[in-house]
């Protein structure tokens, strides 16, 4: 299917610092696209350019074939949440939604519907945003983004500050939204927030897209993350692995093997080795994520020389 959001050759510099470096991607209707990257990778800048808050140095973004600036009453088409804390601290949650509804020309009943949808009760909705927790602000922000019943959602770190139940709730909400034909682009710096919901993932590091695809494609592209295996007789397992030329490293009671679980299982059957544990390496995608973005991480995970001169 054709793309609803189309980013082409987008670049944004700040002097010598390139925040977003020639990135292109598309988001299709009926899908959730996860935009993943460490802090300062350029996710927010990209989303801000999409909405016209930051001008692009080069390249362009269209939503449904239009520049954001040319969408009439954009709140009715594109729901935006860029920063849940960017609300007047002295307004009540209800008032924030009322202003949005009035601007978009929506009936006030829509405010009630959205409050109910994000589970902010009557008392909470009458409290000032200043007194909201980050999780409540996110809920309010999501309510605001959904207010105009848009067909596209652009959400920057929407799960930030939500408790585990809230994250699960949001996943369900966005999944349902995409299933009804909506287009969702959401960013996160936490892989596990996104991997369960995103149909497609974009990994961004230092302004560049370093990998893209579905979870399965990404893992396949990385050659799989390996298998953790423990045998009743580890020595025989080692011998069998060595014989096949499969590399392995001792981890805990067993080994981490650079092969798929199915291959290790087959080997154990052929050699009649009893396995007590066999599973894919957990967080395979996470390793991939960290590896792909390692030179952009603040913390030097891979013991590489620290990036120099990155003005972050």
């Amino acid at each position, binding site marked *: *299917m054709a793309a*609803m959001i189309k980013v082409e050759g987008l670049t944004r510099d700040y002097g010598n610092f390139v925040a977003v470096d020639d990135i292109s991607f598309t988001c299709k209707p009926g899908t959730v696209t996860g935009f993943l990257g460490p802090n300062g990778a350029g996710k927010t800048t990209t989303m801000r350019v999409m909405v016209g*808050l*930051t001008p692009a140095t080069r390249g362009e973004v269209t939503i449904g074939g239009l520049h954001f600036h040319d969408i*009439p009453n954009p*709140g009715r088409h*594109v729901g935006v949440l860029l920063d849940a804390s*960017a609300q007047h601290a*002295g307004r009540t949650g209800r008032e924030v939604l009322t202003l949005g509804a009035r601007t978009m020309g929506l009936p006030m009943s829509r405010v009630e519907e959205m409050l109910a949808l994000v589970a902010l009760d009557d008392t909470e909705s009458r409290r000032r945003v200043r007194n909201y927790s980050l999780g409540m602000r996110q809920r309010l922000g999501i309510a605001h983004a959904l207010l105009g019943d848009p067909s596209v959602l652009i959400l920057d770190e929407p799960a930030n500050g939500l408790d585990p139940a809230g994250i699960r709730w949001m996943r369900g909400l966005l999944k349902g939204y995409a299933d009804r034909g909506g287009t969702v682009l959401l960013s996160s710096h936490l892989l596990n927030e996104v991997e369960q919901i995103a149909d497609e993932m974009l990994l961004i590091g230092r302004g560049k897209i370093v990998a893209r695809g579905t979870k399965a494609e990404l893992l396949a592209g990385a050659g799989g993350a390996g298998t953790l295996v423990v045998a009743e007789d580890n020595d025989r397992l080692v011998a069998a692995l060595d014989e096949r030329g499969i590399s392995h490293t001792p981890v805990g009671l067993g080994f981490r093997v650079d092969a798929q679980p199915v291959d290790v299982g087959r080997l154990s059957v052929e050699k009649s080795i009893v396995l007590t544990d066999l599973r894919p390496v957990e967080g395979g995608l996470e390793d991939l994520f960290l590896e792909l973005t390692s030179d952009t991480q603040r913390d030097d995970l891979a013991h590489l020389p620290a990036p120099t001169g990155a003005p972050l």
Partner: protein
Amino acid sequence: MTTQAAAAPMTLDVSQTPRVPFTRLVQVELRKMFDTRAGRWLLISIAATTALVLVIQLWVVLAQDMSVTFGDFGGGANIPMNVLLPVLGIMSVTSEWSQRTAMVTFSLEPSRSRFLRAKFVSTLLVALVAVLVGLGLTILANAVYAGLSDNPVTWELSPFQIFCFFLLYVFSMATGFAFGTLLLNTAAAIVIYFVYSFIVPGLMELGTLLDWFKDIRPWIDFANAQNPIIEADVSGKEWAQLATSGLIWLVLPLVIGVWRVLRAEVK
């Protein structure tokens, strides 16, 4: 991008959604001035201090058995209005930045010039209401004066005088608005505005010691140029001086400020 995707672009059906009407933007901007505690109390305190000034004025006038005109009370009402209306003008703009609501505002109305115009019109409407409130309080003060004083009472107020009040309020509100757009920061804009309104006139006064400055001062001193308006007696030359000084202190900051808002990256 593949040609296939380009041939069948997924589009938004925007044919059924008109732009947000300008009047609705103005309504929303007006609402934003009232819907926070800070905004509401600023409006209330403008009315309250105006009333307070008139009460003090009445008390002095009656105690001293002075003879005053309706216009004198009007002048009294102007003092707090001219100090506080600019603050309202400043805050209407800067709160969008200091509270970062501009991000939300621009995602609902991406045309920043429409947003600024709506903001400006909403401040003008408040100035209009301020004129009416000021007028009402002035009438009340004059009525009390009429009831308690034996001195002659005047009720004369020409439409031109009312227009002059409105003009004064618009100038002070708009100057605040201009400083707000220029600095996009509440505290800085208020400080700079008060430097402008309390220190610049003193410097201008000092400057008149220089002969060459004495001649150009009327053309560049906006506060001074507004005096004929306060008196509601403006000559052609004075209108011209109002225009040139207003160009420097109101239009120029406003133009630079608008340019800044149109271009500024909204953080």
